[in-house]
């Protein structure tokens, strides 16, 4: 069974704009797949449907066999705890330290403090931020901030990692570092779905690319 499945998914915004039209594709467990396409193709919208940040107007988005669009509001947080999310806007808390930012998903889940601290240190170590726990995000470079986002996304040991343009604004070296981190997690069984318009990156790292064009899937 696919881990993520889009079945003829459409998304129309209140102003009438159709971001997705009859989009159908699937991501198998353990896959490293890309969502590609031009700006405005619907990549971000598709990714936002997976953790129910938005709801589909038509069709069904299934995550682990569960119809995300049909979930009650009260069930959405529990879905999101199984998905590691790396957003284009990063959404780091700039008044909190690196450690506190990475700790947030574990605090939310009620993880005991000692175990949570251990997992945060392990996640920061995996992304190359060991020793920077006390720094504030503003003290980090662009690449380091993105790695902190990844640490926050993986600290809860999700089975699915979803990233929206994780290399935006990074130089090529930093971009490759970030993608190598994703590949490392994929090697240990995490399913990775990355939205990116960077064709070179897709060619270098992707095993499969789902191409979107004006909201439609034109290649999978």
């Amino acid at each position, binding site marked *: 069974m696919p881990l993520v499945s889009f079945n003829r998914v459409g998304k129309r915004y*209140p102003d009438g704009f159709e971001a997705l039209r009859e989009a159908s594709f699937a991501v198998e467990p353990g896959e490293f797949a890309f969502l590609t396409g031009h700006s405005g193709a619907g990549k971000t919208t598709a990714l936002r449907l997976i*953790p*129910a*940040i*938005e*709801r589909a107007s038509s069709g069904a988005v299934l995550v682990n066999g569960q119809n995300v669009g049909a979930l009650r*509001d*009260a069930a*959405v*947080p*529990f*879905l*999101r*705890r199984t998905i590691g*999310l790396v*957003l284009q806007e990063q*959404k*780091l*808390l700039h008044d909190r330290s690196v450690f506190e930012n990475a700790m*947030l*998903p574990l*605090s*939310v*889940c*009620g*993880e*005991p*403090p000692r175990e949570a601290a251990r997992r945060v240190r392990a996640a920061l170590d995996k992304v190359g931020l060991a020793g920077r726990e006390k720094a504030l995000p503003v003290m980090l470079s662009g690449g380091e901030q993105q790695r902190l986002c990844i640490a*926050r996304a993986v600290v*809860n040991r999700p089975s699915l990692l979803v990233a929206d343009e994780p290399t935006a604004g990074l130089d090529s070296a930093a971009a490759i570092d970030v993608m190598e981190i994703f590949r490392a997690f994929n090697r240990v069984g995490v399913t990775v779905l990355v939205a990116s318009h960077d064709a070179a990156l897709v060619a270098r790292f992707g095993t499969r690319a789902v191409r979107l064009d004006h909201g439609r899937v034109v290649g999978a």
Partner: protein
Amino acid sequence: MSAWLRHHGQSLAATLRRLARTPGATALDVLAIGIALALPLGAWVVLANAQRLAGHAAGDPQLTVFMSLDAARADAALVESAAAAAPVARRSRFVPKDQAFAELKSAAGAREIAATLGANPLPDAVVVELAPGSGPAAEHLAAELRKLPKVALVQLDALWLRRLDALLRLGAAAVAILAAMLAAGMIAVTFNTIRLQIVTRSAEIEVSRLVGATTSFVRRPFVWQGTVIGLLGGLTALGMVAGSIHLLNGEVGRLATTYGTDFRLALPPAGDLVACLGLASALGWAGAYLSVSRYLHESRPG
């Protein structure tokens, strides 16, 4: 359960730290709520003391039968025996006119009036002490005594007691209305205070929800903040009322002395005060809960 308790503890600790970091803003919020609560609390304390004073002043209810000026001793004796036969009467005593005039002359403030009267204008009287709560039975006795010969006037002091009771009930209703209005005001103040907090922490809330925070998790620190502010406001109100009582009791004592009593204003019992603090906390909680719930509802995914 332990994670739930742990998060409550963390939320409370974080709330106290946050309030301590902004002492000026916290003090203003607490003061606003304290003043809003001090008004109905003060009115309630005044009412409670008035009820206590009324209880002292009332003593045992009594009925006074004033005889005609030409009534004989036998006529008064008839009144006494009629009163003694009534189950509602505890005892009666005859007050001859000379004794009444002598008491009037010795009463403070009436000495000068008595001196101008010359001859004794007062009639003989029979004072009947009634059982407490006699009510309609006392009125029936008064009606029966009025029918007896040479009875000029029957005065039942239950009437002024009923009026006093009605006034106190009116006061209680007014205090309840005032309290309800100010409680609504306090909820509104807390609602807005928390709303501002939500705005300043909206980024944190958004990220928390993205990584799987439930609405309860998001709500918890804010309702703690509302509860704590409500409690502090309640304590402030209590302090204001207690301070006012302390300041007023000097003058109250001097006034009470002129009436031959040692009455002083007092705070209600400790249990009632604790209940007030509980109510203040609950109002703070309610304002915060409404504020966060509204925000969460408005920010639901589309």
